[in-house]
Structures are given as structure tokens and as C-alpha cells.
């Protein structure tokens, strides 16, 4: 389904020329032409979904796993301090195009002029308990995922070893460890 008014649908169908860095049958990732920082990637499901909740489970999973790998690739190739992954879902959250998209934003160790940190709100005990109760009640219905429910997924030692063998990531681990007092 192409939406003529949808910016991302135009990208998906090749009507807008962009630098595509990854694509498969469900997702497309390209370099944002109005980046927040150098290497800012947009990861977009090819199917037109207006909000995040409409994206099918399998696609959601894949979106995050691909995003994780893209940010690892960004991290290694651009000498970064980290990445932010942001999905703005709904106009109130700053979504400007009614097609789900994830921003993968490279962050430098210093001086990238970006700040996504928020000031903690001082909530009364009542306010937070109300939110807690409402959410807990509604979350009781969560389940029935398409693939990975009710499976104990154990940490694979080999996987960790393999990744940690990678020098960059080891440094990264140590670097970030040092920052914790």
C-alpha cells in the first residue's frame, strides 16, 4: 500500500532518493536527510502502519534486533560514545509523519549538543500509585505474543564471549564501567 502523502512510503517505494543502509522484506533503514547528528538512521517498516501498536509482533521484534545491530555498526564505524533509539508514537510524542519509524541517533562522547534527558517529575504518592494500579491491572492482559512467550531464554555464554572478544565493545564496556562511581 503506497500512501501518496506519506514520506516514508515514498522512500520505501523508491520515489524519494535516499542513502539506504539496510533493507529486507519488512524493514528499510536509511540515512536521515535532516539528521540530529552525523549518521542518524531512520528504521522504517515497509508496510504503512500509523502507530507503533499496529505493527505486527514479529515485525516489532525484528525492528529492535535490527536496530540493535545497526547501532552496533554505527558505534564501530563512527567512533561513537553510544546511540539513542527513539520511537515517537503519536503527535503528542512528536511524531510528525503518520508512519511508524525508529530514530537511531549516534551520540558522541562529548559535545554533540544533543540532550534527550528529562527532568524527573516530583509526583505525589497518590499520583504514582494511581498510575501503578491502572497500569498493573491493564498489563495483566498482556500476552499471546506470536513467537517467544513462556520460554526461558537463557544467557548463552558463548554469545557473550564472542561479542566481548570484539575489542571495541570490550573497551566500550570498560569505558562505561568507569563512568559509574
Amino acid at each position, binding site marked *: 500500500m503506497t500512501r501518496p*502523502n506519506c514520506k516514508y512510503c515514498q522512500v520505501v517505494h523508491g520515489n524519494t*532518493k535516499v*542513502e*539506504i*543502509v*539496510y533493507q529486507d522484506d519488512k524493514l528499510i533503514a536509511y*540515512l536521515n536527510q*535532516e539528521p540530529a547528528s*552525523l*549518521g542518524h538512521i531512520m528504521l522504517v517498516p515497509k508496510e504503512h502502519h500509523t*502507530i507503533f501498536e*499496529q505493527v505486527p509482533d*514479529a515485525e*516489532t521484534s525484528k525492528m*529492535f*534486533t535490527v536496530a540493535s545491530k*545497526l*547501532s*552496533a*555498526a554505527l558505534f564501530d564505524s*563512527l567512533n*561513537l*560514545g*553510544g*546511540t*539513542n533509539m*527513539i520511537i*515517537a508514537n*503519536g*503527535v*503528542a*510524542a*512528536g511524531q510528525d509523519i*503518520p508512519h511508524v519509524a525508529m530514530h537511531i541517533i549516534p551520540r558522541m562522547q*562529548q559535545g554533540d549538543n544533543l540532550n*534527550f534527558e528529562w527532568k*524527573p517529575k516530583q509526583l505525589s504518592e497518590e499520583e504514582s500509585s494511581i*498510575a*501503578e494500579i*491502572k*497500569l*498493573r*491491572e*491493564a*498489563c495483566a492482559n498482556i*500476552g499471546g505474543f506470536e*513467537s*517467544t512467550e*513462556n*520460554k*526461558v531464554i*537463557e*544467557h*548463552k555464554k558463548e*554469545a*557473550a564471549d564472542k561479542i566481548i572478544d570484539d575489542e571495541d565493545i570490550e573497551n566500550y564496556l*570498560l569505558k*562505561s*564501567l568507569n563512568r*559509574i562511581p
Partner: protein
Amino acid sequence: MAQQQMNQEQAQELQERLSRMSPEELRDYQKQNCIFCHISSGKQQAKKIYEDINCLGVLDINPANAGHVLLLPKEHYAVLPLVPDEILGHLAMVAKAISNVMLKALEAKGTTIFVANGAAAGQKAQHVMLHIIPRDEKDGLNIAIPKYRINDTQLKQIKDKLAPRIKEVLNYAEKKPESEDKKEGKGTRLLPDQTMGFTGAQDTTIPAMMDIKIRPDEGLLENKRKKLEEIGFVERKEIENKPRVIDVEETPEEENSEEEKEDASNDEKEQESEEEEERVPQTTAHKRKPRKKAHEDENDSSQENDDVTENNDDVANNDKKPEEDDGKEESAEKPKSGVDLDVIAKLFG
């Protein structure tokens, strides 16, 4: 001063000790000092709102908004690249469900899903987590993503820098220009071998999953396995038995050689027409701006159409499923957190 020096020495000592540790020890060390591990093991109290075998949702004690949820894997992972695909996928689905819950139960006008990966990105704890923040227009949160200008050559440079590593990590290589054009399902389709290329896939073998506490019947497992394969989780053995190098171009060409020719001629035409199309927007760009409002109106009026087509999507999805399932899974099928179309209308109305 003396104290600071002591601290520095201690820090050095710590650093040396850490560098001598094996990855396993390092992980254990982090785990002992990780507050979120204490939360998931119950040593530390927290306002839990969601819990399953693999992950935990708690309310943030320093919330950006009322109802700000942290979704974390129960197992300790210091940084995102260490999280296995399967867990991350599970987290993503739960995050989506929680986001949906926020729209309904908290009547949020939107949600922000935020991951800080690395200290420079604002990751404060050595435990991977997803932030899910309910949003309102006037909540005063400033998680806006700035837009800067960049020229095409810079973009190209960045892409060239990224390409080798992305190829390595995601096993993705860009197709040659001629196959890139509009031949959906032919040249651009990934061979099974490529979709399996996620590095985590080799570690999540299906036999390991069979040791589940609650054993589902065989048919159900088979279905799940099929679905996993669709996503890209596959037994490693199968991959290794296959020849590693597969020529992407050859097989489709043999089958579709006639079509290819047609496409080639079509492509030329398409390119021409594309060029024309590209020119047109430039000339009409000025006209478009004042008409923006009109476009918005169009959007509004097409909202209803959207809803209709979305319904169609759902129908189509439902149609597909029975083909794969043997009907057994239907019983296990979801109390699924469907999306109210009203909700969408509200968010984009």
C-alpha cells in the same frame, strides 16, 4: 585531597582488576552491583507493573511523566549488543503492548519509546532497559529530535563508512543498481541464507527451547518454529550444511530471463519518468507550501479510508494464519492487545 587521591588509586586498582577479569567474571561482578538485578530477584522493592519469565516492567522512580515504565530483561546485560536477539525481540513486543496499555488505561495522547545505549547516550545503569513514557501535548518534556542540514556528499560518505560493518553485522549488501529498481520479490528478495544471517541466531537453537517448563504439544512447537524461521532464528546446523556462498543474481535470472528483459526495457522508461517526476516536485515545491493546509484536510478526510484499509489488513492477516497453523494454536491464541481504531483517530485526528 588525600581522599581524592585514595579514590583515584582505588579507581585505578578497580580498573586493573576489571581488565584482568574474564568476561564471565566481569558479568558476575556487574550483576552483584546492579540494582535492577536486585529488583528482578526481589531483593530490592519496586513498583512492578508487568512480569513474565524473561522481563520485568517497573515504574521509574525518577519518572519523566506519571506512569513512566522501565522494561528490563531479568538477566543482566550491561549493554544492548550483548542482549540476544530473542530477548530483545520479546522486550520489543512487550514494550508495544505496554505502550498500547498506556494509550488505553492512562489515556495518554502518545508514547515515547526510548533506549539509551551507552553512557554518552544517557544510559545510567549497567543494565539494558527500555523506557516507555506516556505523553501528553503539554507535558513539557523535551525529547524533540532536532533537524540539521546535511548535503548529499556527506550522506554518501557516512554510508560508505557504515557499509562494511553493516555487511558484517547484518549480512546485508546492497544490490546492484539494476536489480534495485522496482522488481519487488525478484532481485531484492533476500535468500533464506541472508535472512538467517543475524549473528545471534546461531546461539538460539531450537533444541534449547524445547526444555521449556511448560511443554506445549509438538504441533504448536512446530508452528512456533516456523514463525521463528520467518523472523530469522534458525538452527545453526542447517546453515552450515548449506553452501555458504550463494550467487544472488543467478537463480532468479534463469527463471525470469524473459521478464528480466521486459523489466530492463521498462526500467529505462521508468528511469526517464522518474527523472521527470524528480523535476516536477522542485518546480511545484513553492506551490506546495501554501497548500499544506489543504493536504492536512485531505489527511483528515482520508483518515476514515485508513481505518477501512487497516481493517482489511487485519482480515488479510487472519486469513494467512490458518494456512500455517494446524488449528491447534487457535486455542492458545491471543487475548491479544488489539489496537482500537478510535485510538488512532484520536492521536491523528
